[in-house]
């Protein structure tokens, strides 16, 4: 297991990307393990061979020609208008919340399950009648849906731009505050789970 870990990190070690403590651990192991020492030596030799091939610097002529061509193109190019700065950029926003859908899904499932589960616990302690059961089922379902909305707002408020954070968190906080005031215990539980 240790040798496998070392081999996975040898490339990073050669490129100087390991943290100091990890580098120390790797070097300690290599000093004791012949196979890993040989692997490190092979990787260092390979790196030395690759380093002989350098990316060619652009010639001064190429750079000058590229700059001139760009200057000509800039004379006719138009910048985006000032309102583009204020416009919401969906692609950029989506990149920033790229992890949030997965997180939102997890919290969504937990929130919904928590809401429904809480209501079923309430049902278990109440006398069973068709009306009570149906009412509790509806209550459980609505708790789950409520938890879902809280989950979505909570999860997507992570990693968005400052403007989006303000725009999402204010209504979600207001909505949370409003619903908490209703005093329903299931909603408080779901809200806690959804957060």
């Amino acid at each position, binding site marked *: 297991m240790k040798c496998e870990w070392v081999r996975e990190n040898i*490339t990073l070690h050669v490129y100087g*990307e390991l943290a100091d403590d990890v580098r120390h651990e790797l070097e300690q192991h290599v000093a004791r393990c012949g196979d890993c020492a040989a692997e490190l030596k092979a990787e260092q030799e390979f790196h030395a061979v690759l380093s002989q091939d350098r990316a060619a610097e*652009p010639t001064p002529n190429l750079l000058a020609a590229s700059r001139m*061509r760009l200057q000509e193109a800039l004379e006719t190019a*138009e910048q*985006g*208008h000032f309102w583009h700065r204020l416009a919401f950029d969906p692609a950029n926003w989506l990149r920033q919340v*790229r992890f949030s859908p997965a997180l939102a899904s997890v919290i969504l499932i937990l929130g919904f399950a928590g809401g429904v589960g809480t209501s079923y616990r309430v049902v278990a302690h109440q006398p069973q009648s068709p009306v009570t059961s149906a009412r509790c089922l509806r209550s459980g379902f609505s708790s789950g849906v409520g938890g879902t909305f809280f989950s979505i707002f909570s999860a997507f408020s992570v990693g968005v731009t400052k403007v989006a954070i303000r725009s999402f968190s204010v209504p979600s906080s207001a909505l949370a505050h409003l619903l908490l005031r209703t005093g329903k215990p299931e909603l408080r539980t779901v809200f806690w789970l959804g957060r």
Partner: protein
Amino acid sequence: MPADVLVVTLAVGAGAHSNKNRVERVSKNQDPTTRAMAGQERRIDDTILIREAQSGNRAAFEELVRHYDQPVLRLALHLTGTEHDAQDVYQDAFLKAYKNIGRFRFECSFYTWIYRIVTNLCLDHLRKKNVRKEDAPVVKDGDGGEYDLLEQVADGRAGANPERDLMRRQLGARISGALEKLTPRERMVFELKHYHGLKLRTVGEILHTTEETAKNTLFRATQKLRGALADMR
């Protein structure tokens, strides 16, 4: 990038669109404190230039281009393999930056931002190149290896070492051939790390991924290259 400090005198307001802005390159001593100060001043210069460019000052944008265009062109040249394609990528990248500079919100450095644009354009180029393999200007030799025709032209300059040049060209050709076997993303990570010396954290930021993913991609790329170049020592 040069270590000098640029003193940029920019015309603002009515004179903003003229080319009458003066730029002086002031040499500085190379001791660490002065270098750090020069780096700090460079960042302040860039912020001022970006703000000016955002308000429509084309001269400021052109000055900003000059801060970054050499590494951009070097990256494009090495990835595309031809000067013509490298110029196209260079042009497209900076035109895109010019049109969208208003959307730059200083959430990352301009360096990361422009590199992101260039790497996306280069990735598109690599993906199209993978599809159009028949367009590659290469020649097959007797052993089945491929060599770029232009690389075979001898260097006739005085002082050139023909044998060393031949070995260097052969090495370059073998490595280029091995790099072709990588996926566009692996090639990009390897290029930015090995040839441009960027930290993997920066590479992750440029490619909109995590440092951990960049590390795994680099590991896969080097394993593939070692396999392809196993006989080279």
